[in-house]
């Protein structure tokens, strides 16, 4: 590859560009108007403004990106994650234009993007999916047989609509008749259709995913699992590998299913096969993430590979040089996602200027960051700021290292998740490995940052006073960078003002 256009922004664009530079391949950044000083623009060898802030006009603007690649002589595109990463039309356009798309082929991507189709394909290939069945009538004996076959508890829900209407958990067969009748009644009244859907109910499941890597010559390996059970708003915020829930046997079994999924889909490049793992050790295929994932660094730390460089090599047609039997997990890695969000207010995103950043350093600490002192966090894009990744010999040590690194991660000017995450990785249930997708709602629903103690209060006031006395050196004095005007204060207008939280 002669030149790679990176069709993304933020930390992942930096991540990809670093790999390119280390491989001796020049990079082209694309950016929207407010991103002209962004880190990915600073790092790239060339940078081209491709449009206005709304993603559709810039980072999602397929034709503009293709035109930029051609104009700048880029023969390959790396899409990062998000934006166009899993858009089969974009992959196809690249293929048509003779530009190497660093990711799977458009056909595999299209198949995996269609949830119904991919479920069918995987069931046919013997991949376990969450058992379920549709029933029009109320033949409770038949339903009971189905439920017994898939194993209690099961979930009965209205097929005709969502919102949890009519939904019930059935834990034993004797509850079945009554629950099914109630559900059908409610379904009929809410959606005019009594059709119900029976699905295996998975209590406090873990989110387990397997990283795979596939070349264009039919070779597929898996790079073991990541556990991503710690989620807020169904989005991962803490990931780790290995998972405490996997025995060597289960790991091997899930790994070979992951490889089978990739082969069945004709998948190439790096990808992730997602599973739910229930408390009995049964696992169910969910979907394939057809891209490099946010949490790929923990796999890199434990397996000892550079996934982005592997992506580039595989995309350019190289054979995988690694064999499944040579791969080993070593030590333990954890990633915490640093978001511009307020964990005290339902993870409300917080745009604004970052006045000061100091990133943690030290052995086993990696910080993939898209921010810097003076940068502006835009309202237009995903609020991810950076990813803090630690590796250590054991899970216990990795948790402690993460807590220490989070404490050393200073971001001033906007609210972030650092303090919240430090409490998560030090929570007794987390330390015990009792992680599941309901962890945050269960343990952290009402998390508040502890207020300052007496001496912290004194030191905070004193620091503010000392800083204001010497403010010449403060960020206000940075000229252009600090030239933002103050937003009109809502309290000067009449009446009572409330800066609304979200519900």
């Amino acid at each position, binding site marked *: 590859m002669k030149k790679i256009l990176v069709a993304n922004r933020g930390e992942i664009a930096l991540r990809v560009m670093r790999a390119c530079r280390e491989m001796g391949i020049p990079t082209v950044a694309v950016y929207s108007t407010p991103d002209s000083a962004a880190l990915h623009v600073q790092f790239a060898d060339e940078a081209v403004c491709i449009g206005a802030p709304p993603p559709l006009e810039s980072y999602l603007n397929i034709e503009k990106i293709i035109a930029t690649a051609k104009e700048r002589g880029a023969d390959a595109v790396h899409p990062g994650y998000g934006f166009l990463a899993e858009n089969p039309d974009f992959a196809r356009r690249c293929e048509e234009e003779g530009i190497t798309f660093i990711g799977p082929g458009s056909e595999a991507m299209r198949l995996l993007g269609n949830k119904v189709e991919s479920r069918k394909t995987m069931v046919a290939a013997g991949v376990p999916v969450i058992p379920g069945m549709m029933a029009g009538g109320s033949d409770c004996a038949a339903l009971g047989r189905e439920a017994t076959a898939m194993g209690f508890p099961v979930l009965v829900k209205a097929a005709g609509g969502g919102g949890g209407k009519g939904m019930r958990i059935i834990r034993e067969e004797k509850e079945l008749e009554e629950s099914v009748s109630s559900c059908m009644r409610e379904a009929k009244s809410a959606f005019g259709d009594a059709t119900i859907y029976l699905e295996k109910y998975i209590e406090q499941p873990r989110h387990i995913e397997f990283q795979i890597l596939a070349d264009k010559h039919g070779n597929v390996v898996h790079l073991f699992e990541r556990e991503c059970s710690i989620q807020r*708003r169904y989005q991962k915020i803490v990931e780790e590998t290995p998972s405490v829930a996997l025995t060597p046997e289960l790991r091997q079994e899930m790994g070979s299913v992951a490889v089978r999924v990739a082969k069945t889909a004709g998948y190439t490049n790096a990808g992730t096969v997602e599973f739910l793992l229930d408390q009995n050790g049964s696992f169910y295929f969910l979907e394939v993430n057809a891209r490099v994932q946010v949490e790929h660094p923990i796999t890199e730390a434990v397996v000892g590979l550079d996934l982005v460089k592997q992506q580039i090599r595989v995309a350019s047609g190289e054979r995988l040089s690694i064999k499944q039997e040579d791969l080993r997990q070593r030590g333990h890695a954890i990633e915490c996602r640093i978001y*511009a969000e307020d964990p005290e*207010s339902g993870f*409300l*995103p*917080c*745009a604004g*200027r970052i*006045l*000061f950043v*100091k990133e943690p350093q030290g052995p086993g600490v990696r910080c993939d960051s898209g921010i810097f002192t003076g940068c502006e966090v*835009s*309202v237009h*894009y*995903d*609020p991810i700021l950076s990813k803090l990744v630690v590796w250590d010999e054991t899970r216990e040590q990795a948790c402690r290292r993460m807590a220490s690194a989070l404490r*050393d991660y200073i*971001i*001033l000017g906007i609210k*972030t998740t*650092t*303090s919240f995450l430090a409490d998560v990785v030090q929570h007794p249930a987390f330390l015990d490995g009792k992680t599941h997708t309901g962890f945050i709602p269960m343990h952290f629903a009402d998390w508040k*940052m*502890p207020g*300052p103690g*007496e*001496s*912290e*209060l*004194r*030191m*905070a*006031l*004193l*620091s*503010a*006073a*000392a*800083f*204001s*006395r010497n403010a010449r*050196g*403060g*960020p*206000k004095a940075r000229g252009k960078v600090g030239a*933002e005007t*103050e*937003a009109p*204060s*809502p309290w000067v*207008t009449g*009446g*009572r*003002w*409330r*800066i*609304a*939280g*979200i*519900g």
Partner: protein
Amino acid sequence: MEFNFVVGDREEKLIAEEKEGLWSCTVGDAAFEAEVVRVGPNSFRIVSGGKSFVTYAAEQDGKFYISLGGRQYSVARTSGAAKRRSAVGGALKGEEVVAAPMPGVIVKVPVTEGEVVAADAVLVVVESMKMENNIRAQGEARVKRVHVKAGDSVNFGSALVELEPVSKQSA
């Protein structure tokens, strides 16, 4: 020197004398001494009461952002006469202007002027950073005015809707 700050919902006053990096301070009734060394553009090492602290500080628009022991605090400079903000909560008693909690684009305004809304009703949906956020009423109220419509861009603190107590008309 006298510094008046608001921390959370509390007003705090720091009275301090500084001489060559040594500060003699009073906060509330408590007096303490501290040695303050500026170790970088945004950081201080403070030794006080035999303990050592490292703090990071930045300022914007009269608001100081302080990091200390891995926690962030914000401290607003006031004239010393700023009013104590009452805690939010309970039923709506006076008029209220509901302001945008973040910059963003209005997706939906499910309420209309004059409508009576229940506590927790969604007033406005704002999209910010790829996510839709529901702005809800904190108590039963009548919608007095709606300032925005779908597609509008709003800044932090922009007025979205004004609410008034239901009792005003229905009483």
